[in-house]
């Protein structure tokens, strides 16, 4: 539960974890809009396996916070039907490794309902799921396959990186009139803490956020990998390298202009993501920089990513994920170009 912390301005603001921020946003959205419905496996009395929906069933009743049968395709398909009928469903998939039965519904229905009916029916749904590795979970609980989702026209793909952005972006996703897949960085659920005022203020979708200003290199990342990326920026700063850190936040559609204007300033672009390299979303950013920002580059666009192998289970997973050292090493190499 929220703890009170003294912020830099000396006032008290509740400090919450990322998963608590998700819970606050869900509660706020349900309070504000009676058409918001939360559904998924164990989201009711159990409050979700990560407690993201804790207390919601008690507050809003079992009709609006409903435990579904154990069927992921069903959860996504129910969301489509509910949304076309004017509800605002927020479905939870317990882990990203279980989202694949939903792909048929996302590709064939959710993302195209508005377009194929020329606006007659729409699909204002959110599908939330924990994303990524690093919590020593069992097999199939550590995937980061966001690029597959970002390839689907008509969809939005959003990934917060802090309690503040989880709260603001989830509110925005629920209020958005189109389908959003909301990927929550699992290993930050409890590790990330921040001050969140439950004021109902959303953050903008389709916008990247500059987390730290810098002049020598742009480091673009999203979700949990931003933790290592910002730590690497600290390390580099001690060595006299000034790194700008961009949190992509919305992957589909992604904010090309913020990335390009940062690269125009620094002349160097390093992309960091936990997902496997081939066809990862970093490739999309690299292509954009090559197409629209080549003239400002001093150094080749570079990626630090997960490897093109199956994400290993607990004993090796830390070697798979981009480490502070890999990120810092790649950044130093880029800074040798001038």
């Amino acid at each position, binding site marked *: 539960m929220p703890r009170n912390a003294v912020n830099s301005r000396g006032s008290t603001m509740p400090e919450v974890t990322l998963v608590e921020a998700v819970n606050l946003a869900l509660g706020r959205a349900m309070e504000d809009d009676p058409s918001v*419905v939360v559904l998924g496996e164990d989201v009711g009395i159990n409050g979700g396996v990560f407690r993201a929906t804790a207390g919601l069933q008690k507050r809003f009743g079992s*009709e*609006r916070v409903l435990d*579904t*049968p154990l*069927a992921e*395709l*069903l959860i*996504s*398909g*129910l*969301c*489509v*039907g*509910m*949304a*076309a*009928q*004017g*509800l605002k*469903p927020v479905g939870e998939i317990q882990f990203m490794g279980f989202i694949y*039965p939903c792909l*048929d*519904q996302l590709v*064939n*229905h959710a993302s195209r309902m*508005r*377009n*194929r*009916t*020329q*606006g*007659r*029916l*729409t699909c204002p749904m959110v599908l939330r799921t924990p994303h990524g590795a690093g919590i020593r979970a069992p097999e199939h609980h550590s995937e980061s396959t966001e690029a597959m989702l970002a390839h689907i*026209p*008509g969809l*939005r793909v959003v990934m917060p990186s802090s309690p503040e952005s989880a709260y603001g972006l989830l509110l925005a996703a629920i209020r*958005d*009139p*189109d389908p959003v897949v909301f990927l929550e960085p699992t290993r930050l659920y409890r590790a990330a803490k921040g001050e969140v005022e439950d004021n109902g203020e959303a953050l903008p979708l*389709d916008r990247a956020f500059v987390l730290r200003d810098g002049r020598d290199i742009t480091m673009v990342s999203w979700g949990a990998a931003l933790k290592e990326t910002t730590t690497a920026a600290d390390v580099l700063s001690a060595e006299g390298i000034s790194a700008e850190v961009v949190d992509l936040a919305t992957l589909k*559609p*992604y904010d*090309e202009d913020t990335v390009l204007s940062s690269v125009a300033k620094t002349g160097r672009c390093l992309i960091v993501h936990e997902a496997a390299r081939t066809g990862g979303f970093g490739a999309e950013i690299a292509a954009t920089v090559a197409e629209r920002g080549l003239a400002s580059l001093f150094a080749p666009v570079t990626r630090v990513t997960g490897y093109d192998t199956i994400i290993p289970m607990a004993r090796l997973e830390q070697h798979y994920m981009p480490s502070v050292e890999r990120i810092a090493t790649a950044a130093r190499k880029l800074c040798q170009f001038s």
Partner: protein
Amino acid sequence: MASERINQELPVVARFEVRHRNCLAPDGSISRPLPAFASDARLLIALYRSMVLLRLFDRKAVALQRTGRLGTYAVSLGQEAVSVGIASAMREEDVLLPSYRDNGALIWRGVQLEEILLFWGGDERGNHFAGPVHDFPFCVPVGSQAPHAAGVAYAFRLRREPRVAVCMFGDGATSKGDVYEAMNFAGVHKLPVVFVATNNQWAISVPIRLQTGCETLAQKAIAAGFTGEQVDGSDVLAIRAAAEDAIAAARDGKGPRFIEAVTYRLGDHTTSDDASRYRSADEVQAHWKEEPIARLRSYLVNQKIWSKTDEEQLAAECNERVEAAVERYLATAPRPRETMFDHLYASLPEVYAAQRRELAGEHDA
């Protein structure tokens, strides 16, 4: 004592049965007591007219496809009674979730013939019905609309609206998890939804005996906790009666129902298919004796509420209506190319707006 107990049979914990409904025999004679609505001659004639219109419309659509003026098309030949009979029992405010062969239901509910032609002619505007605005468009990925039907019914329940979702699919769809997952959920919450499986015996080239080991598709509802009924799907009176019962029960809060309409696809799967590759002409010929239009016509003629003159008038009327729709369809120009970006999002993100401008020929400065 102990050996006596061991020899006892295991106790039965549940028993189930599946019933079959039929009203008219293939020759149009009455095989079972008719439902109450059968005394309404105007309704019977309306059902008959709709089936005839659908058959003529299909014939015209195939002719358009063969002459390059329509895309791939799925005819309803032989199974007209199902879509027409089901839709006839729905209220306007109910929601239909059709498969791609349920043209008859759309037409009954007020979708314009030229809208259906536009869809099959490759134009999304065909799904922008002026008619039943809450109905779902044709579902092409088989059975994937079943979870939507459960979601729609859940919304009705949540808002306390006395409305029913009606989800139609074919025999092949009953093999998919989508359909079972949706039925299972509907059973848990006793949702106001009716699932209709048109069992036309063939899923393209795969016969029903390779689709399931069950004696009926109706019994699949039992596993989801509600009633499934098998109906003679070439008997529009039986279909309408089954649909009336199921929809009324769903509306009254008695939960979902499942209707298996057993009929036969007399035509090819679509205009891209040649059914002679996988089934014999003799088999098809035998099923022509059961087809729904001749069956109801025999009944109406026997009842002296339909005549040869009526038939000729109807044919002329339907032809005129279809021809007029075809004219309007053919006169509809394609949309400007850049409109493929319209209705992609409520508000088109700038990054795609740039692509839209590029497609339209206005390049970024």
